[in-house]
């Protein structure tokens, strides 16, 4: 029964997919930015696009936003195949770039009105779209202030608003919450949620695992131009075979085999009075605490860390810096 439901959901998703990417390849001067990426985003679905610098996230968004043309593979957006139907795709896509791509000396309303006109909205429609977008991002009261007076969070919200004026069927978000205050971030999350509920397919590129985990129904993890993993956060964690970890701080250094009598655990090391223990199940935690007490450790602090998307991320991509693989470096 469960299997059947999953198959049906998959079929429906494929039928309703607003973004379908298959074997997409993009090279910059011989350097592979995307090496055959395949995924899809259904209507009303938020898919998180994760990956370190140089993983190919921006390249992917640029191709889907018609700013770049793929070297191989296919990309279909809102039913239009790229790059042939680029103009139709542009009408369907809303791009929220990583930069706050607005005019600092114009007011919020002027920015919105201008981008609405550039989206092809007429006078009344543009005005309505502006009001709607301002309301969605909570900037109605600041609509007539020049953007340069805005805080980073307000600019980010305006940046989002500029991309949704024409109620796009597909919304491409490139790290829309970088450097914003918590309140603005919540407002952005709420807006994204609302857009998804309204039926927009949202591809949400981010470095922030927490927000990806929180917003995205599915995650596509890119690394070095390849899909390293894809699925829900739980599926990714499960697939990574990650287990919870218990972190203890004791008054005294624990002896070497203090966990020898506890099943389902594995000591991962630690330094001095800190000890990290991998547990197969959180049910064994009391046993671990008892063992520490028996060993004279006198536990002062206890932290249980369940495996998260970040753990999956680091597990799959490693901890090495990727500065030389950043988009700028790749571009050129």
């Amino acid at each position, binding site marked *: 029964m469960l299997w059947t439901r999953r198959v049906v959901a998959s079929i429906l998703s494929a039928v309703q997919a607003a973004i379908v990417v298959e074997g997409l390849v993009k090279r*910059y001067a011989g350097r592979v*930015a995307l090496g055959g990426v395949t995924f899809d985003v259904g209507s009303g679905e938020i898919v998180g696009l994760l990956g370190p610098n140089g993983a190919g996230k*921006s*390249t992917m968004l*640029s191709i889907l*936003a*018609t*700013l*770049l043309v793929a070297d191989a593979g296919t990309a279909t957006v809102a039913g239009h195949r790229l790059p042939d139907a680029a*103009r139709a795709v*542009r*009408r369907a*896509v809303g*791009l929220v*770039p*990583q*930069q*706050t*791509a*607005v*005019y*600092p*000396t*114009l007011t919020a309303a*002027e920015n919105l*009105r*201008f*981008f609405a*006109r*550039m*989206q*092809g909205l*007429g006078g009344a429609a543009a005005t309505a779209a502006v009001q709607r977008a301002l309301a969605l991002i909570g900037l109605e009261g600041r609509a007539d202030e*020049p953007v340069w007076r805005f805080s980073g969070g307000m600019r980010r919200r305006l940046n989002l608003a*500029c*991309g949704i004026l024409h109620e796009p069927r597909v919304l491409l978000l490139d790290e829309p919450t970088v450097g914003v205050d918590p309140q603005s971030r919540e407002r952005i999350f709420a807006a994204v949620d609302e857009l998804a509920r309204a039926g927009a397919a949202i591809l949400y590129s981010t470095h922030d695992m927490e927000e990806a985990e929180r917003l995205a129904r599915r995650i596509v993890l890119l690394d070095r131009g390849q899909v390293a993993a894809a699925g829900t956060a739980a599926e990714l964690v499960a697939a990574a075979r990650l287990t919870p970890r218990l972190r203890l701080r004791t008054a005294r250094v624990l002896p070497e085999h203090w966990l020898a009598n506890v099943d389902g655990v594995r000591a991962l090391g630690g330094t001095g009075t800190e000890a990290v223990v991998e547990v197969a199940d959180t049910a064994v935690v009391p046993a671990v605490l008892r063992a520490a007490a028996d060993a004279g450790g006198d536990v002062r602090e206890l932290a249980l860390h369940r495996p998260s998307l970040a753990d999956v991320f680091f597990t799959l991509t490693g901890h090495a810096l990727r500065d030389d693989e950043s*988009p*700028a470096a*790749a*571009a050129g």
Partner: protein
Amino acid sequence: MLAALGAAIAKDLRLLARDRASLVFLALAPVVVITVAGFSLAGLFGAPPGGARAYVLPVADEDGGRLGRALREGLAGEQAIEIRPVAGSEAARALVRDGTAGAALVIPPGASAALWAGRPTSLLLYTDPVKYLEVANVGALVQEARHRLEEAARARAGHRLAVTRHQARAARLRFARSSRILRRELDRLGAELAAARSEGARQLAAAHAETEATVRAAAARQAGALRVRLAAELAPLHQFLAQLAERQRAFAAWLTDVKARAGRFADRLPPPPEPPALPSGILTLDPNALAERLLPPGDTSLDVRLPRLELAPPPSLPALDLPAFPEAPPARLPGSLHLEQVSVTGAPSRLNAFDQNVPGFSVTFLLLGMLLGVSLGLLDERDWGTLERLRAMPAPFAATLVAKLVARFVVGLAQMIGLFAIGRVVFGVSLGPEPWALLLPTAGIVFAATAFGLVVAGTARSRDAVLPVGSIVIVTMAAVGGCWWPIELEPGWMRQAALALPTTWAMRAYNDLMIRREHLAAALEPTAMLVAHGAAYLLLGLVLFRRRTLGRV
């Protein structure tokens, strides 16, 4: 497409309106620079405009005469010169040496006297060779003043000569008239003299005849009377003679008696004086007959002939052959040699420095404005991310680009028109005989500058690269193209090279229309060249900008 274009143009104009720094740069900075440059470079054109500091010209009048006064008065009206009287030539020399002046004028002692006595004399101009422009200008102005003085003196002498010749001509006419009168009077006098002489001769002849008759009658009467009186007078004489003859005979008888009586002594007696023998017949002659004989009766006996009087011939009047009063010689002062500068287009020979500087610096700031507006504007859009966002929108990317170019073209056009209007109102620049013709090269250079801004935007890798690269190119284009000084100051090879620059063609058109006062036709070729430059820049700019922009991730 059109709606998007309009929205993009409106956006760009709004962006500019909000950018105070750009507005100042577009509107205020050119005016300030034009003002400063206009006043400071005015010396290039020899005519500092109103308000500009004039050249100081120390004048040492060691002569103290009319020449110095006349020169000072002659130079007083020159705006380009501020006359500064100094005590002597040393003081004048010192002011040139210390840099106060580039030239100083010395009027040596005795100059006026020598000049007015017709002797040549010289003025002395101390000069600082470094300030060659000032020296050239001041020298030219002093020469002009000197020439005016010479002209005035020549004019006065010419006037005096003309008056003298007029008087001589009048005297000659009077003389000729008097000569004619005199000749006529002489002729009349000659005729009258001849007539008078003829009448005199006639009257003289009549008088002669009458006198002769009168004299003859008088003589006859006198002769009659004389005969009577002669006869009366002769009668006693006749009587005496008769007595004398009687006595003579008595004396002879007495003598004979004596001799007889002297007897023998008679021989001793001297013979008595022989008495004159009385003419025979005289004693017998009747006195009346004698008177008749002496004075025969009748007129015939009196041959009265008055001497013939002849009137002296009338004095011959001198032949009045008066020489013609000579025509006043065509004595003219030697003409002075003028060098008259005539603009081939009828423009004044001395120009307002702002006629060069207003278009020149307007073009310079137009280019710089385009650097900011188009080049930096596009790079700003690229850096802000708006360009990327716009590229992902349905409106054609070309609309975004064209809108920016159109907006800046409109702004550039307004900027140029505004600067020319300010130049006209504040600095009195000439807009030529057809001011509207200026729109052609203005539109041309604005188009070329706009497109050039696109080239810079396509060339520069970053915003920071725009100003150094763009400003170097623009400054070179402006300088070589003759925006800052007349292109004629540049060497020939540079002028040839400058033909490759739009600034050269713009300035050529502006100079033709504003300074040479030519008509629309003069602006056609430069405008065509500007449009060609603009089209080439536009093509190149589109290729470069598209490659640089679309090549980015």
